[in-house]
């Protein structure tokens, strides 16, 4: 049996004005378990706290009920007081008789009556309270960044600069991501490579950063502070440590007809390749799908020309397991496939291209060395049509495209249009838009410059159909403001395709038990206040894996994610919330219901040996909750059909007791 002390606070006249505090203290004295009851003007003051401490000692109290303001206000204060008095801090319950009683009711008898009932409920709960101690778990001071684009690079650099080791896992042979493929960046028009490649070099040279390129994460186990991650290093058939990146093998390779994915298939590369000149790590990779030696065993030219002897045709995939304290997801985006949009003739004509392809066409390191030429015949285009919102803002019942706005298309289309007019004043440029969305620093000014200074024809209306006719592309569209239908004979059409999360994101989210929205973007722990954290503790989000973003936003989010990681890794031990779920193994029937509803992946099942009454042992599958991961929502407790799952601090019994006390 508990020995409970009740302390009723006047809060000056805040409570005492509407509630007869003396009567409350008197009434609660009669409750089971209550051995002492008093009132005081300001319980939260030093004198009030001293009163609590001395009463605990004097009356040998084991539990406290404070009738005062909201627990959101002073619960922490009174828990500390309990600790000072030598009690477990979780033996305190608060009856909220200010915000939820005296302040909302005007009548003294009514207020007093309600305060007594609230006090009774708190007493009933404390009677069933048990001391709780938060668990502690160590923190491994190493971070993992998944994805080596600008988001991953920035996050890794920021964490590494703070002195913590970081590993970057990138599935491509080089880091750099989508930004490495871009030509110029809006709205300042600085060249993407000029600002990105120095950062890539910084990453390569940083003593705290390791790069696992051409690698993937295949398994994640553990929880915040202690993730055990398996990384698969795909065989690149080149010894990374020896390869100097001289490129002799690339020039001598006889198989040169492989579509170059870095240029989106607009030119070819050899079977052994370095994606681009500034690649990091700058080592060659053999594409096993196209290498004659690996396919037929006859060739071996690259190993003959390699002076460093780095080629190793027998290399195998390698699995590495490493422990990390925090994981940052920076998996980025891809433009959507145009297969479902037949009306834009993307698959019929080479001269209908996506914006990312246009970036490569205008990039000095691209397939045309920066000259804007039609992919079909290499001629200079004179009339160019840009189509915005291709695949963005589609209704779900249209069954193609995405429902969201891809955010970056308006600005990069303005950039493309402007740069085209700047370099080639003899071209006519049309942009078909639905809305031009330019919320950002210097964004609208940039768009207006495209219209006013560069004479780009912005037409409100959507392109309905594109038909290749001879060398031309007939673009049929509506001009909504002029009320006419236009037929434009364009030489080149550029589609501002919607972006979607990288395909690998879904399987990664499953491994991390991080939640995603219906579009496969990772969800944040709180949309406003915790935008760079995943609801899964220890998993952080950086860049477009969380939602469409431009480069400055991505970089600032990457920095924010890094600072959260640093904050976590700076701790030696993590103190958990003791109000977590726990399962009664004797009652658990192993049905897995709780595992399915847990948003944090805190519940796992294990086979455990149980000693039966007849002295035999039996192995049963039972749930176990990881207290370091559980956040204490209690969803599992309701789902559990056998009633094995309960939530400490908010036990079924305790809430029932509160209900009973209120309904008495």
């Amino acid at each position, binding site marked *: 049996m508990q020995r409970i002390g009740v302390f009723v606070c006047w809060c000056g006249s805040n409570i005492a004005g509407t509630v007869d505090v003396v009567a409350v203290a008197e009434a609660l004295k009669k409750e089971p378990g209550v051995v002492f009851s008093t009132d005081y003007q300001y319980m939260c003051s030093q004198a009030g706290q001293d009163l609590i401490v001395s009463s605990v000692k004097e009356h040998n109290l084991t539990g406290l009920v404070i009738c005062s303001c909201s627990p959101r206000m002073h619960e922490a204060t009174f828990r500390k007081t309990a600790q000072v008095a030598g009690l477990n801090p979780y033996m305190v319950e608060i009856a909220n008789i200010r915000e939820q009683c005296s302040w909302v009711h005007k009548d003294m008898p009514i207020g007093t009556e309600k305060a007594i009932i609230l006090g009774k409920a708190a007493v009933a709960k404390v009677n069933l309270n048990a001391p709780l101690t938060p668990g502690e778990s160590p923190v491994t001071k190493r971070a993992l960044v998944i994805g080596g684009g600008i988001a991953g690079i920035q996050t890794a650099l920021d964490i590494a600069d703070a002195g913590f080791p970081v590993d970057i896992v990138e599935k491509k042979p080089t880091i750099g991501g989508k930004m490495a493929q871009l030509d110029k960046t809006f709205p300042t028009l600085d060249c993407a490579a000029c600002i990105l490649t120095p950062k890539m070099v910084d990453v390569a040279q940083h003593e705290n950063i390791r790069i696992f390129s051409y690698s993937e994460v295949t398994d994640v186990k553990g929880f915040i502070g202690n993730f055990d991650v398996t990384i698969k290093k795909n065989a690149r058939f080149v010894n990374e440590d020896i390869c100097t990146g001289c490129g002799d093998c690339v020039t001598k390779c006889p198989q040169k007809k492989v579509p170059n994915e870095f240029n989106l298939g607009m030119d070819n590369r050899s079977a052994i390749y370095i994606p681009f000149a500034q690649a990091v790590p700058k080592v060659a990779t053999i594409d096993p799908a196209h290498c004659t030696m690996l396919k037929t065993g006859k060739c071996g030219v690259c190993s003959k020309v390699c002076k460093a002897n780095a080629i190793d045709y027998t290399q195998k995939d390698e699995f590495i397991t490493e422990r990390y304290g925090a994981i940052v997801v920076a998996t980025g985006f891809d433009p959507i496939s145009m297969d479902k949009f037949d009306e834009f003739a993307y698959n019929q004509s080479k001269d209908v291209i996506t914006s990312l392809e246009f970036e490569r066409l205008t990039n000095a390191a691209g397939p045309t060395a920066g000259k804007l030429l039609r992919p079909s015949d290499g001629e200079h285009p004179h009339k160019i049509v840009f189509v915005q919102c291709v695949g963005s803002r589609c209704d779900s019942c249209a069954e193609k495209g995405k429902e969201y706005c891809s955010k970056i298309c308006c600005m990069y289309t303005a950039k493309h249009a402007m740069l085209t007019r700047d370099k080639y004043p003899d071209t006519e440029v049309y942009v078909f838009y639905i809305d031009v969305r330019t919320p950002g620093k210097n964004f609208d000014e940039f768009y207006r410059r495209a219209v006013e200074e560069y004479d780009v024809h912005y037409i409100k209306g*959507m*392109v309905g159909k594109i038909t290749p006719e001879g060398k031309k592309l007939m673009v049929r569209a509506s001009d909504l403001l002029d009320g006419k239908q236009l037929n434009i004979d364009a030489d080149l059409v550029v589609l501002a395709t919607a972006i979607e999360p990288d395909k690998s994101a879904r399987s990664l989210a499953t491994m991390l038990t991080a939640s995603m929205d219906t579009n496969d973007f990772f969800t944040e722990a709180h949309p406003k206040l915790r935008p760079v954290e995943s609801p899964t503790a220890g998993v952080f989000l950086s860049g477009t894996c969380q939602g469409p973003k431009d480069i400055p936003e991505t970089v600032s989010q990457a920095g924010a994610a890094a600072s959260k990681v640093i904050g976590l890794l700076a701790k030696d031990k993590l103190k958990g919330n003791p109000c977590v779920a726990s399962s009664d193994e004797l009652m658990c029937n192993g049905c897995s219901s709780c595992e399915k509803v847990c948003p944090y992946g805190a519940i796992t099942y294990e086979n455990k040996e149980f000693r039966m009454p007849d002295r035999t042992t039996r192995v049963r599958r039972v749930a176990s909750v990881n207290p370091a991961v559980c956040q204490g929502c209690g969803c599992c407790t309701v789902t559990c059909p056998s009633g094995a799952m309960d939530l400490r601090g908010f036990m079924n019994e305790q809430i029932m007791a509160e209900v009973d006390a209120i309904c008495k």
Partner: protein
Amino acid sequence: MNKKYLREDIIRMSGVNPKKCMRCGKCSGTCPAYDEMEYHPHQFVSMVESGDIEPLLESDSLYRCLTCFACVERCPRGVEPAKLIEAVRLTAIRRQGANRLTPNDIPAMLDDEIPQQALVSAFRKYTK
């Protein structure tokens, strides 16, 4: 007829929700009969939405729509303008004396090429 009732009737008949339209004009951009029409597909959607239906009922545009469903196929918001036009057309036709085609008109149109089915569907489309 009551204007509000008319709007609701057309929306119910067509099963189209004109509020979903984001005013992109792709329907009009794709319409093969655009130049024949006084009111264009996107205008049908926005005029029905605003309840401005009388001018549509009186317009010849109703019978210029080929019901080719290009607008339905390409609408990114799934609004289905052709179904809406069909509903307005039916509303016009259902009014007394609004038949656009009578059996007496047929002999003048007949030629060897015209299939039976075209006549049947013309009756369905243009008469009450």
